[in-house]
């Protein structure tokens, strides 16, 4: 943990001098926390969700709409959006966890596309396909003024590290180990007296609210909210990120997000045929490595990295 603290200081120092790097780190905090939350669901609990973007989109729109009323302060809007996302997660989660295997995933996808359709049709509120226009106001609060890029950057990093620590606590706690049991052997868990459905719902809600938080940060970053925040491509991107980075290592999703962002940036800078190149790269990783980058690295590095409970291969 001390090391990560040092890393944070290094990152901040560097970012202050290079706006492009700061942009990259900002986007990494957004997509990194999004991917981390998704892996909590898929990697640790074994619930493969295809509709995770619904929380990201919900967070962005809820926060954006509240701020555009110009009557709400940022912390209040933040809290209200997170609370709203939690309510959404509980209601949808309760319905989805009743289904098993791939049907769970498909139902999450259905709900997400339903939310997307609502966003597109409710033009008077959401602006329809053009999203929230005119920018998101940022009134200062507690002496913090988010319209200054540096302050926003610091806040984003602080929140990100806080979330990483939080998720780390969760997965290392008895609750986290129960999730793993739910993933690997739900019948046994049930026999041991675990309320399996409640654990699944809890995981769903926690990951949903973290994803909503990522959505809020995104809406602040681009000063708007757009329908593709709740589109299936973002859910797909999330899955891509965790697979690229590795689902069995805690930091895998974050590394995966970083790789994804880097790839995307490099490919769009160098070629017009971004689909072709990205597709070939993906194929090589999937068919070549057959697991995420960190999974691969950890496995190669042998015993040193291996704590049996985290790095066991996940069977889905």
């Amino acid at each position, binding site marked *: 943990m001390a090391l990560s603290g040092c890393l944070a200081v290094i*990152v901040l120092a560097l970012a202050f001098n290079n706006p492009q790097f700061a942009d990259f780190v900002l986007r990494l905090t957004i997509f990194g926390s999004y991917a981390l939350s998704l892996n909590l669901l898929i990697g640790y609990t074994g619930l493969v969700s295809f509709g995770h973007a619904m929380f990201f989109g919900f967070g962005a729109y809820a926060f954006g709409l509240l701020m555009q009323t110009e009557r709400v302060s940022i912390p209040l809007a933040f809290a209200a959006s997170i609370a709203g996302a939690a309510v959404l997660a509980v209601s949808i989660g309760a319905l989805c966890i009743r289904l098993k295997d791939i049907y769970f995933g498909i139902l999450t996808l259905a709900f997400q596309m339903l939310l997307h359709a609502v966003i597109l049709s409710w033009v008077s509120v959401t602006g329809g396909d053009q999203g929230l226009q005119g920018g998101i106001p940022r009134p200062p609060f507690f002496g913090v003024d988010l319209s200054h890029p540096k302050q926003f950057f610091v806040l984003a990093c602080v929140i990100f590290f806080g979330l990483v620590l939080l998720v780390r606590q969760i997965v290392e706690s008895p609750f986290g180990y129960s999730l793993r049991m739910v993933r690997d052997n739900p019948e046994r868990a049930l026999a041991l007296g675990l309320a399996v459905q409640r654990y699944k719902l809890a995981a769903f809600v926690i990951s949903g609210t973290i994803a909503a938080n990522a959505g809020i940060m995104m809406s602040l970053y681009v000063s708007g909210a*757009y329908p593709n925040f709740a589109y299936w491509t973002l859910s797909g991107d999330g899955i891509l990120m965790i697979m690229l980075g590795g689902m069995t290592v805690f930091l895998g999703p974050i*590394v995966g997000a970083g790789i994804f962002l880097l790839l995307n940036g490099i490919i769009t800078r160098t070629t017009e045929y971004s689909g072709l190149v990205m597709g070939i790269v993906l194929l090589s990783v999937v068919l070549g490595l057959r697991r995420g980058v960190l999974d691969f690295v950890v496995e190669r590095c042998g015993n040193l990295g291996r704590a049996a409970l985290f790095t066991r291969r996940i069977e889905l």
Partner: protein
Amino acid sequence: MKKVSKLGASRREFLKSAAATAAFAAVGGLARSARGQSKEVIKIGQPTILSGRVARLGESSRNGAQLAIDGFNAAGGLNGRMLQLVTRDSKGRPDEAARVVRELINTDKCSIILDSEASSAAFAVQEVIRQTGTLCMHACSETTSLTADPKIRAANAFRCARQDIHDSIAGGQYAAQFVKQQGLKRWMICSPDYAYGRDVSALFFHFLKQNAPSVEVVSETWPKLFAPDYTENITKILQVKPQALYSALYGGDLVTFIDQGNLYGLFEQLTLFDPNMADYTTLEAVKKLPKGIHSGDRYLSTFPATKANADWAAEYQKKFNVPPINWSWQNYVGMTFIIEAMKKTGSVDSKTLADAIRGMTIDSPFGADGKITMRTEDQTIINYAIGWGVIIPNAPYLENIEPANWNVILELEKDWKKKKGYI
């Protein structure tokens, strides 16, 4: 157990810092190389759509801008400094567009942004350049609110594209005479269900009804944008039996709609008004063009019927092997404004250029009277050529063209803005 996991943690931390360092090195390296190049060259960043269904928007925008830039560079550039266009694909996603613009400004050191994004991404770009203060010329977005709404407008952002409202006023005026001549009272709308489709359709009828109050919109149908199939819309239209149909469909969608409509003999039963039919790619793709479609001109080399326009089209065709379309001329003129401002002020500074562009009038083959003006109060172009006519199957494709009356357009636009609370 504890000992092993601690080692495991530090290994992971090491990996994370290694990854981060690699990332920084990569990005830093890229930034350094970009910085080295920008000494002499003036870079114009162009976020646009180069993939997917509207890829031709990006292609034509790039071509139009490049044509203007090549002409300027051939004449010596800005005191020997050449212009360089840096085009990048945002795939039409607003958050990606925002990222691309940031990258163009920060990493590629572009001094000016030529925003060739469609309307939703244009709003995202607007927010970025509002923050950075970079000069931005929107060359593709037709949404009126981008410049009309004072809350969205920015001092360093201009628009060089046709506007929904201008098109609709012109269309409404034109259609009104046919309402009287042919008694077209019962109308129906079939437009794509997104902001452009809704806005331009609503505006058209707002202005049509002002001139011809007997017009009644008896029904509407709103296919999804890029829908492959219009059967349910067509059968609904057949049931309602309107006398006239207004549609804001364009490009491939319009072609599909006409092809599928022909199967039902739809166009023998009503008169179609569509502002987007007169576009070379669309006209060449429709296999069986029904008679008597009324259309506004997106771009035609024969309207305005001047030598300057025809010459420009020929030059474009020769250079790029495809005919120019709407976005081609808009980007060309957008670049022209920037170039003229550079020539006038000798500067590349965003604020200086913005002050010069505001209120500027340039000579242009696409002007209604040979000139186009960048209006001061809302920083968008006026007096560009708009005309409506009847579509015919062969070149020049549009006949009986009636150019729009700009005095009327400006007056009605002002009234409408007052009603909306924009002024």
